[in-house]
């Protein structure tokens, strides 16, 4: 087994005593591409922001640990956390146009990022930025560097943002729905850009997406989150091909077909913030729920060497 890069253990994140992430455990290897899916509000962004130590003011980590390449991330001073961010781990967010400052050129964004981490002269920094963009197949990097964000298309901004995040060659990129705002063709370009990051620079990628197609295409490992916890986790083919948890099955069934019609949306809604169920959080919506599901919280169980699910039912994984 390859070396472990990121380890999240029993992480709990909350706001005013209400738990958003409820004791999540997850690990990533160096260079691994891990895809996370789950309904809106299940805590994906909160999880990612905890890792990068940029939680919104009202949110706080209440217990658990996060280690990155042996470093205890939660124990770092804020200045040391800053030094790590961008240099060894980085974040790409969904809305690229807003994540860039409209009054400064793309080149200045690269410059200030690089200068925050290393001593480098302007010319050399810009040349490095241009080289990086060229290696990621962005055409005419010099023109891009001289442009303002509003002069570029949304898709181009997103690709620039991905390149920008990679400028210090971090080992881990956290991508929070990096393609959601893009149309299909541009989405494909952004995805192939991220795959290239891994091939050329060996970066591990934790990607959150609602697009199971993107997930199936680029992730090696897939995690499904529900109500602040992982409910299923494992190798891409195992989870996507033989989903074991009823929620995963419903999620996959809900993928829109080619006409964009949702085939089967999941009835009901997850427990609201602060609502505590004694049993499985999915049980009220689960068509297979039994008594035990309402009373006992299921733990992640090993189904096969590369496949885990948190469900009491002994389902034969569904073939699809």
């Amino acid at each position: 087994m390859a070396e472990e890069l990121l380890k999240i253990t029993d992480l709990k994140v909350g706001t005013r005593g209400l738990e958003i992430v409820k004791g999540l455990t997850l690990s990533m290897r160096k260079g691994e591409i891990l895809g996370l899916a789950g309904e809106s509000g299940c805590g994906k962004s909160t999880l990612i922001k905890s890792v990068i130590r940029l939680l919104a003011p009202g949110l706080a980590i209440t217990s658990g640990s996060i280690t990155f390449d042996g470093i205890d991330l939660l124990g770092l001073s804020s200045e040391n956390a800053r030094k790590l961010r961008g240099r060894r781990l980085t974040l790409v967010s969904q809305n690229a146009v807003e994540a860039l400052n409209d009054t400064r050129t793309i080149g200045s964004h690269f410059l200030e990022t690089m200068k925050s981490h290393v001593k480098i002269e302007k010319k050399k920094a810009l040349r490095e930025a241009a080289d990086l963009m060229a290696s990621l197949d962005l055409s005419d990097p010099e023109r891009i560097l001289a442009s303002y964000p509003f002069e570029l298309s949304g898709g181009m901004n997103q690709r620039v943002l991905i390149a920008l995040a990679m400028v210090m060659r971090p080992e881990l990129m956290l991508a929070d729905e990096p393609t959601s705002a893009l149309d299909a063709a541009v989405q494909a370009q952004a995805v192939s850009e991220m795959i290239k990051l891994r091939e050329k620079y060996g970066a591990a990628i934790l990607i959150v997406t609602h697009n199971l197609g993107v997930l199936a295409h680029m992730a090696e490992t897939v995690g499904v989150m529900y109500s602040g916890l992982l409910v299923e986790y494992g190798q891409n083919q195992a989870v996507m091909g033989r989903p074991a948890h009823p929620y995963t099955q419903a999620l996959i069934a809900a993928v829109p077909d080619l006409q964009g019609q949702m085939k089967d949306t999941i009835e009901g809604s997850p427990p609201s913030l602060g609502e505590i169920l004694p049993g499985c959080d999915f049980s009220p919506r689960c068509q297979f729920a039994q008594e035990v599901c309402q009373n006992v919280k299921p733990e992640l169980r090993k189904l096969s060497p590369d496949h885990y699910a948190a469900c009491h039912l002994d389902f034969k994984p569904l073939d699809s």
Partner: protein
Amino acid sequence: MLKYIYRRALQLIPILIGITIINFGIMYLSPSDPAERELVLRGMMVSQETLAAMRADMGLDQPFWIQYGRWVKNLFKGDLGTSFASGRPVMVEIGECLPYTLSLAATAIIMTMVVSIPLGLLSAVRQNGILDYLIRVLTFVGGTMPGFLVGLLLIYVFGLRLKWQPVISDGSWSSMVLPTITLALAMTCKYIRQIRAAILEELDKEYVWGARARGVKEKYILYRNVLKNSMLTIITLLGISIGYLLGGTAIVEIIFTWPGMGKLVMEAINMRDYPIVQGYVIWMAVIFVSVNLITDLSYRLLNPRIRLSEEVA
């Protein structure tokens, strides 16, 4: 950029024509008769005949437009007529007051900026901290105190009690201290609050989080991004303040007997000295037009979105 300035200058022509017509019109309709004044001034007898002769002599019997044309021509030559009160050219009177107004405006603006930008920034960065709270309370109190009260208090404390400052100013540098503080205090309080609000709004934008996610140093985020983007707000404030200050600040100038434009025009109004008032109105028009132009140009420099769209068009 040059094309833009040129176009803006063209737009000014109708505005200036409007201002001069109104300005001349007020003079034209005013109850005082310049011919009569002229006769009195020269010590001649006022009668129907002498008045008519003097009117013809001064061109006052000609139609409105011809008189207006002559007035504008003189205006371009820098001749705004003579003051009724002193008999001296209006230009000379204004020219004597202007340096006082300019210097007081400059010191008040500089003091305001020097104090309010760092404090506004500090207050925003330490949002809801003790320092922020203190600054907010003080600026609230300071902002509600009327200027004349501040001025009188300062005179009482520093002039009468401590005797650090002259009570009646002599136009020297040191006598500028109290009027400057009086003017700057209210402005500073207003500026701090507005700068704080602008910076907080800017700090909340997503690009700030984006930059933090890349580990960009907080000082770069603050000075090169947030403060720079907040400059638009600051410049808008500045434009308004500069316009207001260059008009002369009547109350402060009168309290401190500071011989600036505000004092000049207040006295002119009291004595119905129309040429001076007229000159003052022209001066105000010049200020507002140029302050507007400069504000617009700085927007353009600071906001590439406006600048570039203009270049393409």
